[in-house]
């Protein structure tokens, strides 16, 4: 099996390393993360819709902190899963796609898609800075959707290239 370009492997490794580190941070510094999140919510009362009522504000804060922790957890799991996937799919592309330009486009899509888990970091930060609903919407629209779409496009393109290569057979 042929290996993909170094930059694709590097991105895959980088994402795995980030995912592992994030897992350790979530586990070891959970109280500190929660405290920081609560402080940021308190510092942005308008975007979070805090009303000055202790009971209501506590519920809003708890929901925002939960969303931040969920974002970090998604970052950890997606990074751990996507890193090996990018290396594996890159290997398949390097091994079975005979056309240089098609391979280049495929690697470019995979390289961009490899950064998809970082969208969940943006998700956590956006929740704190823009409020829960608009933060999630912003992260989904501007980070998660473009990066995820690149990865999906790369996978679909690889499937199409495999089929095309088989149809052309020995001529390819």
């Amino acid at each position: 099996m042929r290996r993909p370009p170094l930059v694709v492997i590097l991105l895959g490794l980088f994402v795995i390393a980030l995912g592992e580190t994030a897992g350790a941070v979530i586990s070891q510094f959970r109280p500190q993360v929660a405290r920081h999140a609560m402080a940021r919510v308190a510092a942005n009362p308008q975007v979070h819709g805090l009303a000055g009522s202790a009971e209501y504000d506590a519920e809003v804060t708890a929901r925002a902190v939960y969303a931040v922790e969920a974002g970090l957890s998604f970052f950890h799991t997606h990074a751990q899963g996507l890193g090996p996937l990018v290396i594996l799919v890159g290997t398949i592309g390097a091994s079975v796609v005979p056309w240089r330009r098609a391979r280049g486009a495929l690697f470019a899509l995979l390289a961009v898609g490899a950064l998809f888990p970082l969208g969940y970091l943006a998700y956590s930060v956006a929740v704190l800075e823009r409020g829960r609903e608009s933060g999630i919407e912003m992260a989904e629209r501007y980070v998660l959707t473009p990066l995820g779409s690149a990865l999906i496009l790369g996978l679909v393109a690889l499937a199409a290239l495999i089929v095309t290569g088989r149809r052309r057979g020995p001529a390819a």
Partner: protein
Amino acid sequence: MTVAGSDDWRRPPLPALLVAILLIACAEVGGASMVKFKLELTRWARSVILARPATHGLVGVRDVDEQVIDEAMVKFDAALRLFHLHAEGMGLVIIATTMTAATLVRSDGARRAVVVLLSAGGAGYPVGYLLWSALIPYYGVEAAKTIAERVIWIPFGGATIAATWWLTALVALRLARRS
């Protein structure tokens, strides 16, 4: 094995592959066992918790105790699930990273160290969740977590994190030299 300097992958050492495959197999067995023996596992954990009221802060009032037991059981179940998930994931991570190390790390010593750290760390880390789960009925959620952290998560997880960043740095260095 392939010719050095070619664009082909080199396979990782067989022990690393064996560890990864056994880990994935354990994860599959763990997932299946959680479903198949759910009732037995729940009964066992509950009976051990009830036999240690002081450890879990049980006070003899049914409403209060049931809530405490429920919380411990949720964590007991979650730890088993986390073992299943992490073992599956780390098996693939071991294969991908040791294959990268075998192919792209030129120094024999560094390659061997990275492969050993990735294999041992990656295989050991998920076992921490199994240990946490097994210890929850005996020591309570937090005490069991502390033991699992000290005995497994910190040393094995630390080894994996250090080796992955080391490998990432070596590949980045190689890319920088090439360009």
